């Protein structure tokens, strides 16, 4: 069994370099186009730009944090099968420092409530005399918001650095056992910290857009989407790298694809479960300060978005991935993964935009610009990672066992 495929040897010049060139050119084009649109939007309609930026930011955040969660999950469960694809998850997780830097505009939006008016609780005129918002000032205030953001982003960046660097340094095979054990040990710290940070980050960045409203399951709702998004990004990268021959199809086999598909299926169902749980309890209790959230999203115009969301995020992926052969089929997995990413964008749009476009949903270049810019940026970072690193964690002591994984 060839454990280290020759294609994976980065000491040789890349035979497939041209493929990255094309991807890199596309990424530069996205960044250029997105930056141009963003600048014009910032100039002409800074409010829509701010909402668009938050939309794009939380999307790339979901890709990176979902992948970091996958790495943590791998270590805490002592998984064997996922060793062969763990490097791909680490690739997306290593975006975390970038996520921390790109958080700065959110702080700027919070500081300058006048042109941006992204977070209503930053507008003191609105808060004064509003009993609920005054009570929430102890948590929802700009300095504490910034401190929390840096704390959460810093924690994610540090854990991403820890997991990725330890794994990369295993590639030379030194102290590989000890490094695996160390990562396993720290994953038990990471998991509860991850649960708390993602919950409060989702409160800060998404739920506080409508600061009177609250839902205690909100963090879990956002987590279900984030986990699915990370898996979808990993699956797309794995399927693509297999198809261009950079991941050996005898190393990453149908059995591994099946597990990715099964997890994607799981989180698709989990999202539906959480989304419906949140909706049904609020609908049943029928308390005005809670139902207002769904009333905004279920009047004509937004109702269509809500229904499409249910189909894109749950019903269609559910049937596309239901059968066992479907979970092993790279083309089907690619289709569903793209659908899940579109579903995540739509979900975030559904969470964010009713705060801005209350009457009817609107989507223009003002919102799309920042998304294009941010997606282009992460593709650039992915290309840089792909062209400088091994694509399999072949130094992991469990690598050979993982290659041999059978369902």
């Amino acid at each position, binding site marked *: 069994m060839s454990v280290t495929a020759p294609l994976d040897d980065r000491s040789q010049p890349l035979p497939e370099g041209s493929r990255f060139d094309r991807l890199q050119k596309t990424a530069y084009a996205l960044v250029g186009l997105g930056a141009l649109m963003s600048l014009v939007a910032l100039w002409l309609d800074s409010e829509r730009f701010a909402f668009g930026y938050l939309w794009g930011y939380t999307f790339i955040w979901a890709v990176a944090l979902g992948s970091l969660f996958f790495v943590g999950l791998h270590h805490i469960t002592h998984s064997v099968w996922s060793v062969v694809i763990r490097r791909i998850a680490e690739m997306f997780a290593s975006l975390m420092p970038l996520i921390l830097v790109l958080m700065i505009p959110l702080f700027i939006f919070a500081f300058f409530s006048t042109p941006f008016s992204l977070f209503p609780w930053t507008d003191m005129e609105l808060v004064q005399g509003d009993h609920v918002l005054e009570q929430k000032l102890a948590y929802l205030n700009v300095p504490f918001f910034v401190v929390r953001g840096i704390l959460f982003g810093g924690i994610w960046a540090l854990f991403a650095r820890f997991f990725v660097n330890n794994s990369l340094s295993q590639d030379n095979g030194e102290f590989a056992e000890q490094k695996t054990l160390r990562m396993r040990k720290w994953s038990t710290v990471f998991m509860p910290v991850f649960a708390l940070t993602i919950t409060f980050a989702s409160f800060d960045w998404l739920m506080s857009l409508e600061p009177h409203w609250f839902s205690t399951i909100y963090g879990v709702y956002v987590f279900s989407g984030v986990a699915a998004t990370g898996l979808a990004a990993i699956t797309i990268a794995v399927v693509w790298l297999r198809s261009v021959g950079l991941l050996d199809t005898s190393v990453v086999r149908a059995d591994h694809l099946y597990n990715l598909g099964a997890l994607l299926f799981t989180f698709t169902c989990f999202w539906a479960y959480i989304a*419906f749980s949140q*909706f*049904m309890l609020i*609908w*049943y209790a*029928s308390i005005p300060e809670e139902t207002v959230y769904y009333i905004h999203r279920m009047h004509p115009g937004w109702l269509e978005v809500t229904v499409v969301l249910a189909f894109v995020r749950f019903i269609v992926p559910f049937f596309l991935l*239901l*059968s*066992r052969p479907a979970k092993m089929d790279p083309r089907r997995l690619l289709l569903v993964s793209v659908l899940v990413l579109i579903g995540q964008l739509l979900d975030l749009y559904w969470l964010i935009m009713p705060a801005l476009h209350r009457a009817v949903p609107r989507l223009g270049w003002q919102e799309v610009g920042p998304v294009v810019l941010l997606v282009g940026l992460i593709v650039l970072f992915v290309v840089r990672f792909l062209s400088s690193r091994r694509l399999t964690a072949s130094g992991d002591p469990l690598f050979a066992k993982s290659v041999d994984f*059978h369902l």
Partner: protein
Amino acid sequence: MTESRRHVGTVGLFDDPDSLLEAARQVRDAGYRKWDCHTPYPIHGLDQAMGLRESPIPYICLTAGFIGVGVAMWMQWWMDAVDYPVRIGGKPLFSWPAFVPITFELFVLFAALATMGSILVFCRLGKWHSPLHDSGIMADVTSHRFAVVLDRADAVYDRQAADSLLAGAGCQDIRPLYENEGDDGIL
């Protein structure tokens, strides 16, 4: 005491799973339909080696699940909106969001019962006896050996051909399989 017994098939015993897999491929390619393998633990690739068709159970499971959905929705509509209408919380009599949890439960219940039931049917539960019980191989194949069992009822079965097929596949231990009259079981 001599009971009358009849010949019902052939058993080939192997000492390792790889030989069993090779034998299974040869039996499959010889066109056998009524035959089985017995192993102490699941063996990867045996399904393909035996050429087993896709199981119909997932389809039965899904169909039964959707019947459960229909029954649950109909039942709750009839109970809450027709037979005993009580207005609760100012909501419509047919309030589908409130019915979803029960609909989900009946989906799972119907799917699970249908799966269990169809497995019992496909395993031919109800036949209480198999000639393998008397053959003396069961203690071996539940601990350390691997068996191919060919059924005489198979269209391509021939006693000599079966022996030579198994011998050709490297089997060192080929035994005829008998069943006592009146036991009335098959494989």
